[in-house]
């Protein structure tokens, strides 16, 4: 099976300061892949390179197509949609308006209505709160709104950054369940996480990033039993 997202020899950074070095990563259609690593490793920077909000060198292809020369809007139109770190909702807009912004570039009214139905079925609480200001909801509900907003764009690959940050474990479990359901609906997922336990519970394969380099990769089952990974990320000795 060929990769949906293909990254090889990728370098990126901010101005003069390099952050990523020779990063290689693949996501195949239908997978949930996780990228884990501690704070400052460069995970968010990799997502920014994918969505073309920072420049990069090396290979970056989606569905066989190089992303190098594209604008963020063009990448978005290919179906690469991000759920950004820290939710980044439109706080002073209603939940419904946030979701509409997810569908901003869609012109198929019927498809958008269908998408509303789908995300409301996935997150019934958002339907209840659709008239409420997004910024006034709890952290968990805001994360749901951020995921729902991304789903409104009909993504082919969903890039989720630090979904669990600041959320209670029971809420995290609920969101992980939703990611599994999203994948069953045919959307591929790349999940960036510091919470390795949570990430491994839902992913098929994983990559471990340290100071801008991929240091481990493999099936989640193998990573779980890797002594280095156990020691550094799972707190097991």
């Amino acid at each position: 099976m060929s990769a949906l997202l293909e990254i090889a020899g990728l370098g990126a950074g901010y101005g003069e300061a390099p952050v990523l070095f020779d990063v290689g990563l693949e996501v195949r259609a239908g997978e949930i892949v996780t990228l884990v690593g501690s704070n400052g490793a460069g995970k968010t920077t990799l997502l920014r390179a994918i969505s073309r909000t920072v420049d990069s060198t090396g290979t970056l292809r989606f569905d066989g197509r190089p992303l190098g020369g594209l604008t963020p809007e063009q990448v978005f139109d290919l179906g690469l949609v991000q759920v950004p770190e820290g939710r980044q909702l439109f706080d002073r807009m209603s939940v419904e308006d946030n979701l509409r912004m997810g569908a901003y570039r869609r012109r198929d009214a019927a498809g958008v209505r269908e998408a509303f139905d789908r995300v409301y079925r996935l997150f019934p609480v958002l339907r209840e709160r659709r008239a409420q200001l997004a910024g006034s909801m709890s952290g968990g509900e805001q994360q749901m709104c951020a995921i729902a907003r991304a789903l409104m764009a009909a993504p082919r690959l969903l890039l989720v950054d630090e979904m669990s940050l600041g959320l209670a474990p029971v809420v995290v479990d609920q969101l992980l369940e939703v990611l599994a359901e999203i994948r069953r609906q045919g959307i591929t997922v790349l999940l960036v996480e510091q919470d390795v336990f949570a990430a491994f519970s839902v992913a098929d394969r994983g990559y471990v990033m340290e100071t801008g380099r991929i240091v481990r990769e493999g099936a989640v089952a193998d990573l779980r039993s890797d002594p280095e990974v156990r020691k550094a990320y799972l707190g097991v000795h």
Partner: protein
Amino acid sequence: MALLAQIVVNGVLLGGLYGLMGLGMGLVWGVLNIVNLAHGALIMLGGYAVYYLYTGAGVDPFAALPLAMLAMFALGYALQRWLLGLVIRSAQLNTLLVTFGLDVLLSYLAQLAFSADLRTINPPYAGSNFALGPVTVPLAPLAAFGVALLLAAGLQAFLVRSRTGRAIRATAQNLTAARLHGVNPKRVYALTFGLGAALAGAAGGLYGVVSQLTPYVGVTLTARSFVVAILGGLDNPLGVIAGGVVLGVAEAATALYLDPTYVNVISFGMLVVVLVLRPSRIFERA
């Protein structure tokens, strides 16, 4: 008592127009974080556009408003896309300097093109009025007030209901997220500045009917627009009209009880008061 009522009527009607001036300034300020010191100059240009459409082509000033707005929209869009857009991400001082320079340039060009003479747009109904109990209601200012309200309500509906209006609000609230969802901020900023200029153009045409135009009228109108935008808040168009009414009534009362020559001092005085009382309004945006 009748005199006071008359002052309130005059002040409210002129104030609606000030509200319209503040609306364009507040929109650009809220979305682009630019305090546009050339806003008054754009109002002035809109005024001359309507003046020449009326005197040169015989178009009724109110019918000329949409044309002036269209032309000013195009000018505003181009200014943002190819001039202000180049400095928008730099320090606020730079945008202040550029818009200040633009104000000087536009006033100077206007003086060359239109001469320094006072101009009034003077349609046949300009002096008409009707009695309402003890007060006289002047027709043209009443119509100007109506247009201001209409445009404010229209802007409100556009921002709340339309797809582009939503993108404008989204960009103002969270630029990163807007970009991540496929909004092109350059286009949104140019559209917003164009809208601000179009509103300025309408205000200018109406101002030419109820008052007088000179190439230098922009400076005091920028100050008024600024005060009104702060009084009214940056995210509620009808609130901005109310802010304009406050300034209009204050000016009318000053003209009567103090001296008409103090009128221009009022907006600067209120500017100081507003800066002291509502600094958060200003600095949360800066």
